[in-house]
């Protein structure tokens, strides 16, 4: 038994000293951190300002688009303001639960008509701070007023006390530019045909010409034709005898980058909102009344009968809880795969340089095997512990207004009971797979041979990854049920189903299945280990292997 621990100790310290182990350990939190942070940074920093040209021949929509742009910008200002307040600990916790209606009540009379340039009173600022919410339309309107932001910030700085970091307003991501007059030449853009306009602007879009002195080419061209308002689609809008095809009709959006459709959507929404308003007017409808009617809604909530009385409401946390197992399955998969690979490599190394013979003269095959299993399990456990804690740490650190889910996920992981289940299924999975890989390792003399086996093993192991989303969507469906009873997949699928509270019978049944599989796998590998460990040259044929498995010697 002592030898088991000596061997385990050596396996642990040797593997824990490899560069790969440390890279694994450090990379996970780094990647996690980066995968949350980098898209944010890219959005803020790397994505260039999108400049576009609007040719509004109808003369109806220029200001509409400009307003929408401004509002979009104010939204980003508020979002950043929210982060700023959160980072500097000014926000209060009640904020989240406050509805727009409640916020409205707090706004003092005449607030909207105030002259912000003259400054804000403390009470006013408090009200505004309380209103900081990226979805709050009132705030957006207010901040759009000249001087409002500066006045607000003045008060904010006072409240933050000594020497607060200055608030930096975000960049404008979308900006409308005008073509220089000489670019048009003799052409009058207000009357020219679409084709003529495009012909002039195309070189700018293709980056063959550049009038803005920017690194980036002109992002887009939006053309609103002269008779745009006559080209509407909808009930009662018939374009009889119109020679134009559907593509030639209406507003045209030209851009070489059609994957980034933020601008296209913004313009489309702004124009269509305006069209609706016009339509209301044309039909003698009271647009305010319609808006009010549109905003009248029935409350709708989802309930989960499995939850305790009074707590049945399905929250964001519940949704996250439902999907969190996907993350765990993935984590488990990576960990098991990494760890059994270590096992395999160690085994092959010892075999290829014949250290195994010295070991065999010092310890029983069982001691060697169990020593390796325990030692490598320790490595895996260390890795998992570091990963889980760094996951929690990163989530805790990142949790904030911009990554709301991080905080919720943190709570879910802490409180849902998924962690102990994860530990259990990881253990079972490790036992099952380590037995198999140890057996494979003991049959191979070279890393190359081992890799041939690994190819097949990897394909088999991929299944839980391919199916994990489907299993989450339908945790008690036939796919989930079927895979639960395939011993190689049981740990993964049960982890996958964990959040959906599978029936007790399934929990117990699968537990027994995993136990039996693990014992069988270890038994099998101890038999194969004895036979394979001293073999040199080609791995044995299947038949030969079966024969020796069944024989006593």
């Amino acid at each position: 038994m002592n030898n088991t621990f000596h061997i385990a100790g050596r396996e642990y310290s040797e593997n824990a000293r490899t560069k790969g182990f440390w890279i694994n350990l450090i990379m996970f939190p780094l990647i996690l951190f980066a995968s949350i942070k980098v898209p944010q940074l890219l959005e803020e920093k790397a994505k260039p300002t999108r400049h576009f040209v609007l040719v509004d021949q109808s003369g109806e929509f220029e200001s509409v688009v400009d307003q929408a742009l401004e509002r979009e910008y104010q939204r980003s200002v508020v979002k950043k303001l929210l982060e700023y307040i959160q980072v500097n600990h000014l926000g209060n916790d009640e904020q989240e639960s406050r509805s727009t209606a409640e916020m409205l009540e707090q706004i003092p009379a005449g607030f909207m008509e105030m002259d912000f340039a003259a400054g804000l009173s403390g009470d006013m600022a408090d009200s505004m701070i309380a209103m900081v919410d990226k979805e709050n339309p009132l705030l957006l309107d207010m901040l759009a007023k000249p001087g409002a932001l500066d006045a607000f910030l003045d008060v904010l700085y006072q409240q933050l006390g000594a020497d607060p970091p200055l608030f930096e307003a975000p960049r404008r991501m979308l900006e409308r530019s005008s073509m220089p007059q000489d670019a048009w030449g003799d052409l009058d853009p207000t009357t020219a045909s679409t084709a003529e306009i495009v012909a002039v602007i195309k070189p700018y879009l293709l980056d063959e010409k550049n009038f803005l002195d920017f690194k980036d080419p002109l992002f887009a061209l939006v053309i609103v034709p002269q008779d745009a308002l006559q080209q509407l689609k909808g009930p009662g809008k018939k374009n009889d005898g119109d020679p134009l095809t559907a593509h030639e009709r209406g507003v045209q959006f030209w851009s070489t980058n059609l994957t980034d459709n933020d601008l296209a959507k913004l313009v489309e929404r702004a124009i269509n909102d305006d069209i609706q308003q016009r339509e209301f007017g044309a039909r003698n409808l009271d647009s305010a009344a319609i808006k009010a009617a549109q905003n009248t809604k029935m409350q709708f909530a989802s309930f989960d009968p499995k939850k305790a009385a009074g707590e049945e409401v399905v929250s964001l946390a519940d949704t996250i809880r439902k999907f969190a197992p996907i993350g765990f399955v993935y984590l488990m998969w990576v960990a098991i795969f990494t760890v059994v690979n270590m096992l395999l490599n160690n085994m092959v190394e010892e075999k290829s340089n014949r250290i195994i013979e010295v070991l065999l003269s010092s310890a029983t095959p069982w001691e060697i095997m169990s020593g390796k299993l325990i030692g490598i399990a320790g490595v895996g456990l260390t890795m998992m512990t570091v990963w889980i804690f760094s996951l929690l740490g990163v989530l805790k650190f990142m949790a904030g207004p911009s990554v709301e889910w991080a905080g919720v996920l943190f709570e879910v992981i802490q409180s849902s009971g998924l962690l102990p289940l994860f530990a259990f299924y990881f253990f079972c999975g490790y036992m099952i797979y380590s037995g198999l890989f140890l057996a494979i390792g003991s049959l191979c003399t070279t890393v190359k041979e081992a890799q041939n086996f690994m190819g097949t093993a990897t394909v088999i192991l991929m299944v839980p990854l391919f199916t994990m989303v489907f299993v989450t969507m339908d945790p008690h469906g036939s796919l989930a049920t079927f895979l639960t009873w395939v011993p190689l997949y049981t740990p993964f699928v049960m982890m996958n189903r964990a959040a959906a509270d599978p029936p007790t019978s399934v929990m117990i049944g699968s537990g027994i299945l995993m136990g039996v599989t693990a014992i069988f796998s270890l038994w099998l590998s101890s038999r194969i280990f004895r036979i394979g460990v001293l073999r040199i040259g080609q791995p044995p044929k299947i038949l030969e292997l079966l024969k020796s498995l069944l024989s006593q010697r």
Partner: protein
Amino acid sequence: MMDYTNAVELHDITKRYGDFTAVRDINLAVPRGSIYGFLGPNGAGKTTTLRMILDIIKPTSGSLSVLGASSAMEVRQRIGYLPEEKGLYKKMKTWAVIAYFARLKGVGAREAKNRAYELLERYGLKEFSDKKVETLSKGMGQKVQVLASIAHQPEFVILDEPFSGLDPSNQQVMEEVISDLNKGGTTIVFSTHVMSHAERICDRILLIAKAEMVFDGTIPQAKALIPKMVNLSGVHDPATLRSLPGVASTEAAAGLPGSYDVCMTENADPQQLLRDCFRNDIELTAFNYHEPTLHDVFLHLVGEDAKVASFR
């Protein structure tokens, strides 16, 4: 601790792999405190026999005892083993490898470390103690592995081809290690196909060829197996020479007139032949007698098989 007179006893040990017989009917007793050489061509079954002694593989039939126990596993802490193909954990420090194997044999942590440093110093590897194994040359690595197999001060050591891959001066060191151990009372079994080592240090040898035992005994016994050869020069009367007692046959040595190779009968004394020559007035210009070497014995016993086997 069980008492025993023979460190190893093999009774009709046979090992078969399917249709192939690796070792057939070996009987052997290795006396306590002796140095026993296992000789034989490549593929003769030496390593298989050693592995069976160590209980790494099980014999197909026959019985054995090691240090009085029926399986080496029971007494493994008292046995040291150096396998034929040498390998160590490359990433470990030299002292740590030695200490690790000593610990597997039941030596305490502190003691194992001390012994590792001691051994490394004694055999000239002190400066490599704290270096990784991968920095050692092949010969040094092999020395380290030998040290690893004896650090727990075993009473019985099995060395499979301990000299292979070593340069002459390190082979010398290896011989010293073996005789040092033996002076301390350790029983040693080693295998080799280099006869000169065996001849210098073995008390007894076992010669195996084609899975079977060809000879087992002391070196003088082995040498007695082949007829003594004497070379005489300046002989004018070969007929008289042939009639002398103790002469089995004569053969004219090629290219030298009057030079004859004399093959003597068993137990005949070459000195007596010299005296008989004088007595019978056979004039000699030269009389050459060489003790047969183990190499001669080996070739005599294994003959063509050895050549075939070694080219396989």
